[in-house]
């Protein structure tokens, strides 16, 4: 009855008080997190691990809704159109910052068209070569690229694995052939079998192959070394100073989601990320846990959007 009374009051007092009342009873039903990638991809794992803990804390189920396609744009647009009531959330990622410059004709802004909650993780990419490869370091790779046309695989046009390769091309002023793959597993098998010279994927899908010696790690793309691969130098250390690529992701909501709900979700994310189980699951995959305020997350997205715009335009990768 109390709930009903509140609703009546809400109706009477209008929108100003609506926000406060909604936040008090929030969440009253299951929450949906849209993941704009296929089930099983690393962002999906992040959403499931963090969502599971948040669900336990908030006492409502959290449903993962995979909406893959068009470089994350399909899922992102679906969230932007959803009711801003805190029951539809988006797992946004570096793809949203790239998307804006990759698809200049988009009718919406995939990076800024959402209300941010917090960053969740950041994970480095890693340059890997076949175990039989004679590429021994980044410097060596660049030297070889000057004498023969190296080929690098990627998970598709405009992914970090593609653009990190393009960044090497621009920074080292070499030319290399980009070989895109739809099925990332096949990109890995072609590198393992030395059909392609290298690939620069996120650490999580390659960690097992690196640790078992089926792939040789040459350098990590983040500005600092990965705790999971402490002996592997950064790109910045090994000849391309300033090289910094990481695949981050975080949580967002449709624009117009009430401030108290955003604050509540930010607090819940903070709590979930401190959980040892969540930390173990994510860092075991090579991801760094990053929590911050919506403003801090917005600053990251701003910086990343600018950075990738330059890379995309240098690579001529726009899709028009």
């Amino acid at each position, binding site marked *: 009855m109390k709930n009903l009374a509140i609703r009546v009051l809400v109706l009477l007092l209008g929108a100003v008080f609506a926000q406060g009342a909604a936040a008090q009873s929030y969440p009253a039903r299951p929450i949906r997190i849209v993941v704009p990638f296929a*089930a099983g991809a690393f962002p999906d794992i992040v959403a499931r691990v963090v969502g599971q803990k948040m669900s336990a804390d908030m006492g409502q189920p959290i449903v993962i809704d995979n909406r893959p396609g068009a470089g994350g744009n399909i899922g992102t647009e679906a969230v932007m159109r959803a009711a801003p009531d805190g029951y539809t959330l988006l797992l946004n990622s570096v793809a949203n910052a790239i998307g804006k410059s990759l698809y200049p004709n988009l009718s919406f802004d995939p990076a800024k068209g959402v209300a941010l909650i917090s960053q969740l993780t950041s994970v480095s990419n890693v340059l890997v070569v076949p175990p039989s490869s004679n590429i021994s370091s980044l410097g060596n790779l660049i030297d070889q690229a000057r004498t023969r046309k190296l080929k690098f695989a990627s998970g598709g046009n405009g992914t970090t694995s593609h653009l990190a390769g393009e960044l090497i091309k621009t920074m080292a002023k070499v030319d290399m052939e980009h*070989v895109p793959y739809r*099925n990332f597993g*096949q990109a890995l098998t072609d590198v393992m079998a030395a059909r392609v010279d290298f690939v620069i994927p996120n650490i999580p899908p390659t960690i097992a192959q690196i*640790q078992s010696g089926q792939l040789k790690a040459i350098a990590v793309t983040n500005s600092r070394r990965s705790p999971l691969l402490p002996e592997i130098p950064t790109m910045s250390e090994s000849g391309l100073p300033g090289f910094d690529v990481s695949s981050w992701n975080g949580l967002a909501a449709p624009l117009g989601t009430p401030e108290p709900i955003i604050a509540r979700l930010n607090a819940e994310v903070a709590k979930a990320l401190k959980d040892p189980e969540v930390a173990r699951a994510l860092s075991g995959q090579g991801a760094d846990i990053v929590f911050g305020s919506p403003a801090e997350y917005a600053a990251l997205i701003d910086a990343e959007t600018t950075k990738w715009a330059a890379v995309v335009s240098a690579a001529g990768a726009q899709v028009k």
Partner: protein
Amino acid sequence: MDVLHNLAFGFGHALTVENLLYCAVGCVVGTLVGLLPGLGPLATISLLLPLTYSIPATGALIMLAGIYYGAQYGDSVSAITMRIPHASSIVACIDGYQMTLKGKTGLALFTAGVSSFIGGTVAIVVLAWLAPLLGHVALLFGPADYCALMLFGFLCVSFVTTGSLLNGFSMCLVGVLLGQIGTDVETGLERFTFGLPALADGVSLVSVALGCFGIAEITKNLDAKDERTPFNGRINLIPTWPEFKRIIPSALRGSVVGSLLGIIPGGGPVIAQFAAYGIEKKFSKFRDEIGAGAIEGVAGQAAADEAAARTSFIPLMSIGIPENPVMALMMAAFILKGVQPGPNMIANHPDLFWGLVASMWIGNCFLLILNVPLVRFWLSVFKVPYNVLFPSILFFCCVGTFSVNNNLNDIMITASFGLIGYVMMRLELDPAPLMLGFILGPMLEEYFRRAMLISGGSLKTFILEPISASLLGLTALIVVAQIVLSLRKRPDGLRRGMA
């Protein structure tokens, strides 16, 4: 006899009360998913993953794996009874449905169930004995080899076509064109999407298959009240001994083909069904009957589909590479349980690996019971009057289509293919070769362009790679042999009479 020792160890883990229960739950859920038109294991596993958070790793993975191979087990049922395919039971719509039209539904279902059992068993033997070695088979296949394999696959057009061959090839080309819709992987540009975001990622296999077969068939039933689909839910499951004998060789051939195609990334159950069907059409003693409702047409594909589903675990568990979306999701499930699939998995988690292998065999027995004797109960839905049954089937088709990408647009796309399929049916055009073109066309293009990128534009790569060279040689040989044979005009009718 290390393997027997390991299997015994595995059964020790799989035969605990909880794990038996998880296996049974997985198989029942999988069977339901297989029976419901359009619904696939990907959406189901994704939805049920959260329920496994509180279950120990071995039990959780036994259950999820059970959903996957369980769904492949029963996926021919709707194709046989209603001509509504799943992605991996498209060819069951040919002979399986013909058998229903002849009133042999029970025999077709028995054949599919027993063949799946045989396929599953063969695949488990492969999995237990060869998993650590076979992972590396996945590395042998490069883009040039895949390209040759896809070209080889196009030979199946002549096998899955029931009417005129010219029609078959034309439909296959239409399928290839349909496969072009979507984003080009190499340039990122959209093709044939007319600027519609709904088409940006292409049309899904489930939409085309459901539309062209199932929805078209239901529509036909609506406009012809007298010629309604004859199946009424009453079946006679027990085959005669000669019928039973015909199942075994086909199922064994299908199992081998399925096991092989399951191992290589890009193969899997969807391709395996066509390959097995083609092989039956070529090598079976009863090849002339295939297409008109022969046991072999059902047995081979059912066995191959099931075998491929199980051996597709091999690349995941031996080299850590998921070869299809369901395996990528299984990989996530392993990771969420703190197990890293990859080369070290068998050594680091022997209880999990061998427990899973052993549970697959237990699951195989559960599924045989669920799909053969108990299939009667599932089919009692057909006693429902048509005006309730058809809308409910359409409802499930919508749910199934929606669940692929959780996207409402896909339902509209499926409906459009229902219309196209109905027109095709009225014009007596074959949807099976269209499906084949739709599946193989985009892959052929993708592998060809990738092979060209890697070889620097040299076509010689197709001859220099041994696998590609042999496959291309084989393709050429079959085409030449086919032409020679048709020129000699073999007295087919006479032979059939003697057999």
